[in-house]
């Protein structure tokens, strides 16, 4: 594996993105703002406060986490699949000095970049709305790279094993949506059956939400273990996207 060659793959995706970003950036940015407005203002009129925090301010940091998650997942599920299967971009790239491991690394880094970009935009937006109390929120930015890598890894692993593009329905319905709803973005998990919290503990989004919320309120100490969790998982998952993609494409 060579970082420079992985960068070439990243660069290809970046070049294409800079041509198409106007449509996709707008869409990715509208959806989280809709969530904030509908739930924060609509539901917030009834809920008012959670743990002494106005409801819209409670959910805002979580929206950073979910936006960054969606960005990486879309990129490394549908995006990667289309490049691999329909456009045959992978075949074209693999006929150059770039090898499969470089290619997979490039895809993962690109997914993490999208996570970083879309998460950062939400940080900016909710800060402009005055929903962030602490400048420590800026520390979320490096964390988004790590969590973005995890979401990319999981997505590439799934992309490597599915028989066809329809199988993503399983991924979205059984994995992403439940993770999104039960990650603590919209309500604390304390009042739910303990099993829910136990399951949530094993999902990356739950930890990312904790970190975003902790840093948004200026509380860094709470985030240590969540950060350790993310770092451990990114390392643990590391070999699998490469191994499974090799199996899919070459064997």
């Amino acid at each position, binding site marked *: 594996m060579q970082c420079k060659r992985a960068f070439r793959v990243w*660069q290809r995706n970046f070049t294409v993105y800079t041509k198409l970003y106007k449509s996709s950036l707008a869409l990715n940015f509208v959806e989280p703002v809709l969530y904030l407005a509908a739930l924060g203002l609509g539901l917030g009129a009834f809920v008012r406060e959670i743990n002494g925090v106005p409801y819209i301010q409670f959910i805002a940091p979580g929206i950073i986490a979910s936006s960054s998650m969606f960005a990486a997942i879309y990129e490394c599920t549908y995006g990667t699949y289309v490049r691999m299967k329909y456009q045959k971009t992978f*075949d074209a790239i693999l006929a150059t000095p770039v090898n499969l491991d470089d290619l997979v690394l490039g895809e993962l880094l690109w997914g993490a970049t999208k996570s970083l970009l879309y998460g950062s935009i939400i940080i900016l937006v909710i800060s402009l709305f005055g929903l962030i109390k602490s400048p420590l929120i800026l520390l979320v930015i490096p964390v988004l790279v790590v969590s973005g890598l995890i979401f990319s890894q999981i997505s590439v692993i799934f992309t490597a094993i599915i028989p066809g593009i329809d199988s993503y329905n399983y991924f979205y319905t059984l994995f992403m949506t439940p993770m999104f709803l039960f990650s603590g973005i919209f309500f604390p998990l304390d009042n739910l059956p303990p099993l829910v919290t136990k399951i949530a503990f094993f999902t990356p989004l739950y930890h990312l939400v904790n970190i975003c919320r902790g840093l948004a309120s200026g509380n860094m100490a709470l985030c240590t273990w969540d950060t350790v969790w993310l770092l451990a998982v990114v390392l643990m998952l590391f070999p699998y996207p490469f191994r499974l993609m090799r199996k899919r494409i*070459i064997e």
Partner: protein
Amino acid sequence: MHVISATHLTKYYNSLRAVDGIDFTIGRAECFGFLGPNGAGKTTVMRILYCFIPPSSGDVRVFDMDVKTNPSAIKARIGVMPQEDNLDPDLSVLENLIVYARYFDIPKRQSAPLAWELLDFVELREKAGVRISNLSGGMKRRLILARSLINKPELLILDEPTTGLDPHSRRNVWEKLRYLKARNTTLLLTTHYMEEAEALCDRVAIMDSGRIVVIDTPASLMKEHGGNLEEVYLKLTGRALRE
């Protein structure tokens, strides 16, 4: 020294033996053709030679380097024209060449003039800013040919370069390939068109069911078996169909 040498090259896909212990060598500036029915193993051989998939066994050397241990160094010196259209649909004609050059670490200040030169070569200069979806089939093939030349390859691997093209476009591609051959580029191609093999190839290997049935010049094959190359081909292949 040979540009390509393969000894006992074998490839299994699970239990299916796609290539069955073949041997061949290809010399510098030679144009060598693989002929054979669909499923004979031609594309698999091409893919092994451009290091896309590893051989199951046997020794395969390109530029005297092992395809298993030196894929990047080999790929840096070859150009590949695949069977399928895999141009980048989100990029323009010119951008396709420049982005492709980056994979070879060719910076834009070098690749841009080269890309224009190649667009002239394949007669697509006026299409430089056009999206790929607006190109005809023949233009796409020519652009893929131009793309395969962006790293100034010593060896060009062409998998059915003219399949699906009208006679004019086909002859246009032939003319380019002859020009490249005259400039000492080694050409390796697969084709289903016997007149293509006759027109371009110094030697051909006729493959059937993963094996090489015969390797020779088109002229001596026709002399030995009688008839034109198509008749020779039909006589020597199709074992799997007949059985």
